[in-house]
């Protein structure tokens, strides 16, 4: 019983049909528990007041923004090597979710930083890296949308994902270099202020779990939609 069995589109749909509602439910439960607990039932951190609570949304969404891209990278590699359509479609389904996660990370990061910086945006290295990641997601989605032939689109977007991943890593280093400016060594960074001991760890974990499950549920749902859409166009093409 190999995992590659689920590469068959029909089997994938059949297997995931009962699973998706459960995963959604679990995700909702974790999110509710994690966020409510984190926002309302933990004491305000002494130094930063209540806006630090946004960490319960910011950290999980930031984690998912990166993990979504990693998942797309793995799925792209599987497509390039083993030509499993489900893999390519899963990558396509994950992209919009990753895009939104990145956006949430950006917005919540800006909200978090506002009391510290006094402005709604600062070119902090972490936020800037996420902004670049946001652009990469946009490009990836745009390429998928621009190409008619699904196999060609899968091939080209997979190569883009590969090359983009290398450049994303490179950009991370470059942005850190850039943020030093002429005052080498000093940095204005959210990381410094992330003192997780200041906030309660457990609700954060639950929140992270909720985001992971939400991602999983959305990607499964998206992949199923992509598979069905391919099936419809295949049937139409045959005039069936």
């Amino acid at each position, binding site marked *: 019983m190999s995992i590659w069995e689920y590469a068959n589109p029909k089997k994938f749909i059949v297997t995931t049909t009962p699973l998706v509602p459960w995963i959604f439910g679990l995700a909702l439960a974790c999110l509710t528990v994690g966020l409510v607990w984190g926002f309302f039932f933990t004491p305000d951190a002494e130094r930063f007041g209540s806006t630090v609570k946004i960490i319960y949304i910011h950290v999980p969404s930031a984690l998912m923004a990166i993990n979504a891209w990693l998942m797309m990278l793995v799925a792209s590699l599987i497509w390039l090597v083993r030509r499993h359509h489900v893999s390519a479609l899963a990558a396509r389904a994950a992209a919009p979710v990753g895009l939104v996660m990145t956006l949430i990370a950006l917005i919540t990061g800006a909200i978090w930083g506002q009391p510290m910086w006094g402005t709604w945006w600062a070119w902090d290295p972490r936020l800037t890296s996420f902004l670049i990641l946001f652009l990469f997601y946009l490009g990836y989605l745009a390429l998928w949308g621009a190409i008619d032939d699904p196999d*060609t689109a899968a091939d080209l977007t997979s190569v883009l994902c590969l090359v983009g991943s290398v450049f994303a890593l490179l950009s991370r280093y470059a942005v850190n270099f850039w943020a030093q400016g002429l005052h080498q060594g000093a940095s204005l960074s959210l990381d410094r202020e992330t003192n997780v001991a200041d906030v309660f760890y457990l609700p954060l974990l639950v929140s992270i779990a909720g985001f992971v499950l939400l991602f999983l549920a959305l990607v499964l749902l998206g992949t199923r939609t992509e598979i069905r859409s391919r099936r419809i166009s295949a049937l139409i093409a045959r005039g069936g």
Partner: protein
Amino acid sequence: MIALLTRDLRLATRAGGGFGLGLAFFLIVIVLVPFGVGPDAAVLARIAPGSLWVAALLAALLSLDRIFALDHEDGSLSLLATAPLPLESVVLAKAAAHWLTTGVPLTLAAPALGFLLHLEGAAYAPLFLGLLLGTPSLSLIGTFGAALTVGLRRGGLLMSLLVLPLYVPTLIFGAEAARRGAAGLDVTVPLMLLGAISAAALAALPFASAYALRVNLR
């Protein structure tokens, strides 16, 4: 491969707008900057390195979508694909032609335009070196973007969306080199990194671009 390079250079010079257009665009963008930010010399001097680099990026982008599109339209690309030349060499020849017709002229023109923006004296050398080391990566990355979008109508805009984020590291190190040079700081790190990016792009991107071309020719 040299034959392809020579042919493309010949076509670029004869078709008109090969060398000249990119340079003219570069000049125009630089001239626009003071109109946008005001004529204060101190302000211009501070943004000069970045403005020159951004203008160079955009000028490089201009001529990219024609790299493969013309050959694709008249069928030469398919014929080249069936020729004894590996597609990777085709990509290299195209990128080299782009660099010679766009990257090198920009590199030579930048110091000349630097004085328009009151670029600090100490920044000229790092700017020039940075462009020299960085423009090859601009051509190689751009060729990759062009290979991805070769079959598409209006592919130029999409290609810009794909390529510009990939240009960010080169832009950062190039502009930083010029800025640090202006402040009298050490510039070896950013310059070496620029060279490293170009070298890595040279080693890896032709394969990715050739793969994309093969897919688009199917």
